[in-house]
């Protein structure tokens, strides 16, 4: 069993296995998104309070979920990279950071696009979740900035991993502190984000879209790690064979 994992974690094997899986995963992701969009945009009924505007949650909420999930995966990969010096995990740290930062930016942008018609303002300091997302974006930017500042990719990954782990310890604290801070400023708080998708006909498409976002994340992460492996191992024999073949 252990032997199988060891073989999988060798860059060469990973390249081949991921290459075999990717076409299937890609097709599945595209089909899933088509179904999810149809379900969320057409089939699901409008919200009795927010009308059609609530449909933004079908991309906003999954983006927010994934922004956190990507951070968790990044920190997990960071731990593996630090303890076992696994090359694939080192690469995964950076690629998770890139994807996670994009998901966070999307969660923020779609949240603001939702907030404008609902609150009448793009930015609402009273909303703890939006504020947490903004801080999360800065955490991602820190990891990316640190990684980019170090020339040696292996050292960069390990340094970024330490920061990612420090971040994952901090995320719950930050989230809690933001909520705590929020309760001090009662009155300003508008709880528009209060479970608009409580009804199951709205909830199911949301969960489905969440699943599709996870599928997308896995697929694209796999593809990105695969390419990065080929780049970093460029002077190895197998990489040359792949490029020429």
């Amino acid at each position, binding site marked *: 069993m252990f032997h199988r994992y060891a073989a999988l974690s060798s860059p060469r094997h990973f390249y081949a296995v991921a290459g075999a899986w990717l076409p299937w995963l890609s097709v599945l992701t595209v089909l899933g998104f088509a179904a999810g969009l149809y379900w969320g945009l057409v089939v699901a009924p409008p919200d009795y309070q927010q009308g059609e505007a609530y449909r933004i949650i079908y991309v906003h909420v999954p983006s927010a979920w994934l922004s956190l999930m990507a951070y968790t995966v990044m920190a997990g990969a960071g731990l593996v990279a630090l303890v076992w010096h696994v090359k694939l995990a080192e690469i995964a740290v950076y690629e998770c950071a890139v994807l996670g930062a994009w998901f966070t930016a999307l969660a923020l942008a779609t949240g603001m696009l939702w907030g404008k018609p609902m609150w009448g303002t793009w930015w609402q300091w009273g909303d703890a979740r939006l504020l947490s997302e903004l801080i999360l974006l*800065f*955490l991602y930017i820190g990891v990316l900035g*640190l990684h980019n*500042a*170090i020339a040696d990719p292996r*050292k960069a990954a390990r*340094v970024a991993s330490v920061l990612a782990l*420090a*971040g994952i310890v901090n995320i719950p604290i*930050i989230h809690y502190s933001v909520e705590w801070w929020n309760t001090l400023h009662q009155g300003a708080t508008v709880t528009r984000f209060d479970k608009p998708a409580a009804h199951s006909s709205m909830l199911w498409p949301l969960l489905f879209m969440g699943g599709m976002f996870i599928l997308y994340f896995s697929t694209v992460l796999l593809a990105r790690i695969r390419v990065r492996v080929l780049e970093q191992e460029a002077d190895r024999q197998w990489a040359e064979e792949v490029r020429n073949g």
Partner: protein
Amino acid sequence: MMGRIFAAVFRREVRLAWRRRGQLLQPLMFYALVMLLFPLGAGADLALLGQAAPSLLWVAALLAVLLAQGPLFSADLEEGGIELWVTSGVSLSWLALAKLIAHAMIVSLPLILVSPILAGWLGVSGEALGVLAISMALGMPVLCWVGALGAALTLGLPRGGILLALIVLPLYIPVLMFGAGAVHAAMEGRPAGGALVLLAGLLCLGASLAPLATAAALRISQE
């Protein structure tokens, strides 16, 4: 043996800080200057300043702490001190703990001591001054340790200063919120105990995790 090594590191840090006391004064001067700038910028509107005083004090102190992080490991890196630590066979986390505790005391103490004076300028008085001092005594070490981790991570990087701020400032947010929140509460006559307990919790968490993370960062810096 471990205790003696701890004491040796601690003594060395305090001694070095004293020999480089000019460097130590810089964050302090920065803090005082920034607190002088706020009233000037606000047109001496005392009511407004009093309202904002807790956050102004905390933000300025936070930036002053950040300023003190840059040189933390730079001499050790250039002179080879970190190599000595890593190869010494002594647990690097233990050495880091000694250094971090010394560092927190050296940097925080002056800032904590001048804080009530600066707060007085802004019209903070009474019980709030005491809460300010306590909140800073609890929160400043955490800021120092998170900053030290940032300094260890950006060690030897060109333009590490701005990067240090970028990675450290988001992590400072909880301390800022609880610290300023406690002082706010005291000024408005609400109980400040909850926020102080949360700060104490952060202090414990920081003391247990920061040495581990800093040690890891220092080890990697040698690769």
